[in-house]
């Protein structure tokens, strides 16, 4: 609370972001009854889940990812490399954003509201404790995948010494995850479900929740998340080999 005004501004900023994103879907559904086969309640569950993922990411990873390029360029990574803990883990979770935690609570509230709305409608698949638990677990996996994909835009700093542009590019491409995968077709869909799996963050878990459990979808989501993580760790380790510290 040292920077109180910034604290409150960020809360207001995130609330406004939530309002804008939900309004986007509300306005569209004023003209259509379904979007890619999804009803308004389903789309609201989807977007509130994405906002929840975003809030989790902002609370746990975002601040830490923000600082990584500076540590890499200034040679301040040494402090983390000498610790008997994975440097990637330490750097990724060392700081918890308190102002984003308030937004996380708000996002959980919006998520709960959307689930209640959805349950009062006519869900295609029964909502059970198991389905809710699985969905929650996949949201957490989605948060992790969101972090992993974001890291691909930070790791190049090891070689090019500048994250200028990469951060902005990541912000733009992450917008692809905030729209239901059902609207994407053809090669765009293939890219978003495999090469750069933004659709697996919230969209695929939402499909599992709406339509019922499918092993193939679950394996796809978990398998791609694991694959992306392994690739990211590979590049992180390659990046560390190129890292030149401040002291040597």
């Amino acid at each position, binding site marked *: 609370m040292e*920077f109180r*005004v*910034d604290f409150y*501004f*960020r809360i*207001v*900023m995130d609330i*406004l*972001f939530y309002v*804008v994103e939900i*309004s*986007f879907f509300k*306005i*569209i559904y*004023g*003209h*259509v009854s*379904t*979007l*890619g*086969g999804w009803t308004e309640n389903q789309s609201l569950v989807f977007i509130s889940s994405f906002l929840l993922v975003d809030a989790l990411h902002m609370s746990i990873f975002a601040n830490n990812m923000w600082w990584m390029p500076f540590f890499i360029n200034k040679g301040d990574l040494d402090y983390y490399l000498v610790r008997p803990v994975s440097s990637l883990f330490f750097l990724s979770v060392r700081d918890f954003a308190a102002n984003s935690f308030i937004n996380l609570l708000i996002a959980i509230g919006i998520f709960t509201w959307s689930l209640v709305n959805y349950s009062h409608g006519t869900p295609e698949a029964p909502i059970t404790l198991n389905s809710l638990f699985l969905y929650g677990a996949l949201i957490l996996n989605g948060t992790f995948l969101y972090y992993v994909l974001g890291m691909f835009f930070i790791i190049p700093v090891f070689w090019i010494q*500048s994250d*200028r*542009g990469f951060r*902005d*590019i990541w912000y*733009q*491409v992450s*917008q*692809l995850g905030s*729209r239901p995968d*059902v*609207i*994407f*077709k053809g090669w*765009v869909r293939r890219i978003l479900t495999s090469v750069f799996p933004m659709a697996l963050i919230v969209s695929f878990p939402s499909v599992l929740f709406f339509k019922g459990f499918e092993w193939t979808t679950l394996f796809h989501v978990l398998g791609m998340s694991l694959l992306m993580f392994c690739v990211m760790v590979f590049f992180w380790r390659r990046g560390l080999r190129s890292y030149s510290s401040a002291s040597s």
Partner: protein
Amino acid sequence: MNWLNLSWQIYTSEARKLMSYRADFWAKSLVTFLTAMTIAYCLWHSIYESTGKTEIQGYRFEVMILYYFVILNVRKLVEGEELGGGMSQEIYDGSLSRYLIYPLNYLRFKYIQHLGAQFPIYLQVAFFTLLFPLLFTFQLEIPLSLTHLLLALLIIYLAHFTQFLMLYCIEGIAFWADNIWSLIVMLRFTGRLLGGVMLPLEIFPDWATPLLNLLPFKSFFYLPTKIMMGEATLAQITSGLMTLLIWMVILAIVGKFTWRRGLLTYSGVGI
């Protein structure tokens, strides 16, 4: 050195600075454009397909895609690339002090810098305009005359200046607040929703119309887009211009007041 000469130096210096990161601004710009157009294309293709309609609120699918193409470029021209003009950072680190000593008007200086930062965007917009017929092979007749184009460019310029005044007001809050970045971000995404960048304003519910007409964002993005598409009426153009001018005056007064009060509290810490 007269003001014109100095302004030219400031303008070209800022343009050269941004052009030195060529790979960065082209990559960022291309990805932004392609991502936004991909989302718009896929979203509206899905909407038209699921409704079975050929027209939604007067937009055929091809016209909708053209709308997004034009408004995304208009947005670039009005907003620019950089988040804010750096004024808040100068307040925080004390480098504002030198501008207080220099024999120049700070607002004028920052505006010319802001204009200089637009130069690469003109090149990007020209490039994307050439790219559009390659990406989208629609047959469209656009009744764009030279008058329409000049009028649209005038409104874009006025919108750009009004948006700069908004930033000037917001960045002046830095005299009291420790971080105003979030306010600028709020302005950006609110403006994009209420200015028709995310969705055409015809799609909005009727009860939102008075609010959309009151705020300047409609004149920032939506109005120039409609002019370039040959779909703006004289009444809309007049109304939009008046809105812009009124907001310009309001923001100029608020900005002047904010900075005058802010400078009284400024201590130049950081130098």
